[in-house]
């Protein structure tokens, strides 16, 4: 009997099979107008992903980066920028930027060797700047060659950037590893690629917008540990003059995700709800434009530049798929969609 067992043992050993048991999803080849939804994923888990929603067709594609390119997006997808038919995805903890075709999601090129990249901003021609959380420099990159062309010494970490004229305003959002207050906008001349000036704003500037009158709006959360009251600043960028400063009523409020509509006259931001205000309002809105219902936790905000539809993400418990809620321009709820883990920045594709 024992002999039979040994025989069976060796026979069984010879019978090993591999089978690919997953069904390959049908690749998408032509994305219609819509919005990229970046799913950040968990830090050091490498489970970031990319979703795409075709708004007119009401079709949602999850995991589209992997579906088309057969590799994962990476570790903490931080931001997405659409430029000249290319979607540039900054993958923060993977230290790279992927460039994909905005209509096919096919990989085009990548920029690697970055330390902790956060946002990418094209500044003219093939040149772009990349902000970084750990470096005291910003990167100058060539979008055509996908190489780092140089560094801009700014002395602080940088986060979101916005361009006004031939100057880039970069927010020093994080106070990590710096002894000075993180309350400045750093101003870089895009012709010389040198930092030329700075503007002091509130603690922890997190997002910016430029209105139809060319004024720069900066939203500041007041600090990671709620050290100060949050503030909203209106600045004339050329003269650096602060035109108006709004102070939020609650010190533990965390307003962020400042956005502006296509016509440049209405500002939106998140603060436990979606708030809306005119660029000419004399005070902050007291009540939310869209309520954050119980059980929901608004994380990122996007305003469709064409339709005015409002997209809000919800990461739930941050460890499984999140949701994106869609509201019309009047703030009425339309639908919700299940996306990837920690759905975040939106990249509208028109």
């Amino acid at each position, binding site marked *: 009997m024992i002999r039979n067992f040994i025989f069976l043992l060796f026979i069984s050993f010879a019978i090993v*099979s591999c089978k*690919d048991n*997953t069904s390959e999803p049908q690749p998408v080849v032509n994305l219609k107008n819509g919005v990229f939804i970046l799913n950040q994923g968990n830090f050091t*888990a490498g*489970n970031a992903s990319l979703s795409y929603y075709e708004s007119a067709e009401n079709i949602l594609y999850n995991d589209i980066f992997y579906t088309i390119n057969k590799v994962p997006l990476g*570790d903490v997808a931080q931001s997405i920028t659409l430029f000249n038919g290319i979607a540039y995805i900054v993958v923060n903890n993977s230290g790279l930027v992927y460039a994909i075709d905005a209509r096919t999601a096919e990989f085009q090129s990548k920029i*690697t060797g970055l330390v902790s990249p956060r946002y990418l901003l094209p500044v003219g021609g093939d040149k772009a700047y990349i902000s970084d959380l750990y470096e005291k420099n910003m990167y100058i990159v060539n979008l055509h060659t996908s190489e780092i062309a140089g560094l801009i010494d700014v002395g602080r970490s940088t986060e979101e950037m916005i361009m006004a004229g031939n100057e880039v305003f970069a927010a020093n959002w994080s106070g990590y590893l710096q002894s000075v207050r993180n309350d400045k906008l750093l101003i870089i001349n895009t012709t010389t690629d040198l930092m030329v000036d700075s503007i002091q704003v509130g603690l922890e500037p997190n997002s910016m917008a430029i209105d139809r009158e060319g004024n720069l709006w900066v939203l500041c959360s007041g600090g990671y540990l709620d050290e100060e009251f949050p503030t909203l600043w209106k600045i004339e960028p050329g003269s650096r003059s602060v035109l108006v400063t709004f102070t939020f009523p609650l010190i533990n409020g*965390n307003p962020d995700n400042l956005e502006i509509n296509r016509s440049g006259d209405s500002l939106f931001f998140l603060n436990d709800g979606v708030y809306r205000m005119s660029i000419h309002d004399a005070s902050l809105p007291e009540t939310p434009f869209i309520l954050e219902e119980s059980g929901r936790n608004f994380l990122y905000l996007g305003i469709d530049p064409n339709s005015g539809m409002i997209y809000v993400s919800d*990461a739930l418990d941050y460890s499984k*798929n999140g949701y994106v809620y869609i509201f019309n321009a009047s703030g009425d709820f339309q639908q919700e969609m299940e996306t990837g883990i920690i759905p975040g920045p939106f990249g509208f594709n028109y």
Partner: protein
Amino acid sequence: MINRLIYRFFTHFLIMVVGLIFSSNIYAQSVPDTILLQELEINAQTGLNGSVIKETHIDSLIKRELHHLSLAELLGVHSEIYVKTQGRGGLATASIRGAGASHTKVLWNGFSINSPMLGQLDLSLVPTSFVDDISFSAGGNSLVNTGGALGGSINLVNRPFRNNSPLFEFEQVFGSYKTYATSADLGLKNGNFESSTRFNFQTSENNFWYRNNGIIPTEWMQQEQAGFSNVGFTQQFSYVPRQYHFISLISWNQWNKRDIPPIMTNVQKGGDQDENQQDFFSRNVINWTYNKGATFFELKSAVFLENQKYNLQTITGDETADIVTLINSENKSNALFIKASLEQGFNNGFTLTAGSDLGINAVQSTNYNSMKERRLSMAYAMIEKDFFQRLTISFLLRLEVADRVLLPIMPLFGFTYQLFKNEELYISGSIARNYNLPTLNDLYWYPGGNPDLIAENGIEVEGGLNYSVQFNNNTSITVNLTGYSSWINDWIQWTPSDYRYWTPENIAEVYARGLECSTEVSGSLNAISYQVMAAYSLTKTTIESAVAKIEGFAGTQLIYIPVHTASLVAFANYKGFTLNWTTSYIGQRTTTLDKEKNYANALPAYLLSNASLGRIFTFNRFGFELRFKVNNIIGAEYQAVLWRPMPGRNYDLILTFNIN
């Protein structure tokens, strides 16, 4: 009749398990190809037949075979314990019966060596060669050793006397990826005094090649920044002052260094990032034991010191190339324990066991805003009664006080019954309640710690059958079958708070249930002695909290807990030639609680096989053994942790010399 039935059952069971292991479809990862994963699911081993409290001892042959490795690899081969590992030398934690790593208490000579901060123990930092006996108790069976082990406890014991152990033993290992390990063991005896000195040194560059399909383009590359080195020693003194008494002192000191590599998706990062961990610990236990007849009394004390440093740094991209330290974390923890226990047997079949512990943990950490302490007091009593030498009933009560807060009583009630008088066939069952304190990180991490947390609690029921038989030709067969079911409430989970940081809450409810089957046959055929062990575990551990039900993910298997696991271990010895074969099957594991599975949240199942061939030479008192080992024979590509690569086929050459 019974023997024939059991023999046929064993036959069919072994065929089933072997067929399962070797003939099952291995689902290749449709997603990024999995990298070799050292994660092994261990399945049940045989327990003590007539004991109510089930304690499973690691087989001595397996321990001998893996003497040069850590507890992570040892438990990963042969037990009901699931070891989640980041590879040889990397962080490895244990989960028993689907519970969390902090629900697995590791006891060294009776004292818990789990980190008071994290509540876990890194098994890769425990050399197998430093411990004599290794056993584990699952579920409520652990209550006799410690409270809080909602999954179970792993018990590491150093015997005070060497008895038949060699006088001197030296082992040298040469392995793939520049892996070297040296261990030595020296025993001295003079009258009533014994000394035992052990030394262990391990180092590896761990620079294996792997296929990285986490980046574009997919390419073969060499693992970098994954080296490790550990060096340590134990010194034990034992003394018999007079009959029935002995005193023992043991000190275990170890220095560890480990580089932590980036995950596969992050290898193109700039800044030449360097992430590493270093630690030193000194664990010391002194005990006095009195053992006469049916009386066993022990008084012991332990002092543990540990200093752990974690560093993450990068280099700026400008001309200065400055080193920027991103994280420089240091944790110092000290602990002092005193424990007394008494076991007394009585002629009428009663056995009384009672004990009491006092302890204090103190932690100084850069992650806390001040030094934190925890004071613990524990007491337990167990009565065991034997009826007609066939039925044994046990009842245990355990009390714990933590920082002057009394936890609810932890009771255990169990029985074992010999079904037939002349057959070693036992049926057993038990029910127990257990509580696990929040860790110091849960309470005091800054920011986010929650000092209002309460203890996690669980109720577990288990039942089983155990059978063993020995035939005239020295062949013996043991079969074990156990089923269990447990509810764990107030499971601590870190979640986003109203602020910008996360905070732990008692919110999760988990239902764990499963089946553990194992069998073992040993004997000899002519000049060949053999031992074969096969096991299978079914582990269903699902989340059942109110939030999960509302959000529609109730019933989802917890992450990194495979539902199906199996193992086969075989030894053979023929005139000094030794052959060992080990195969483990690890089922699919999920990495999120989403119901829909894809490449990122479902790690495919895999099969891992190792084999070794050796030759033992003996001359008078001298012994010499040469062994060649092949790990991951089929070169499987797998992942234990998402995007952590694992080595392919690799080799070890092991040379052992001893003097008896």
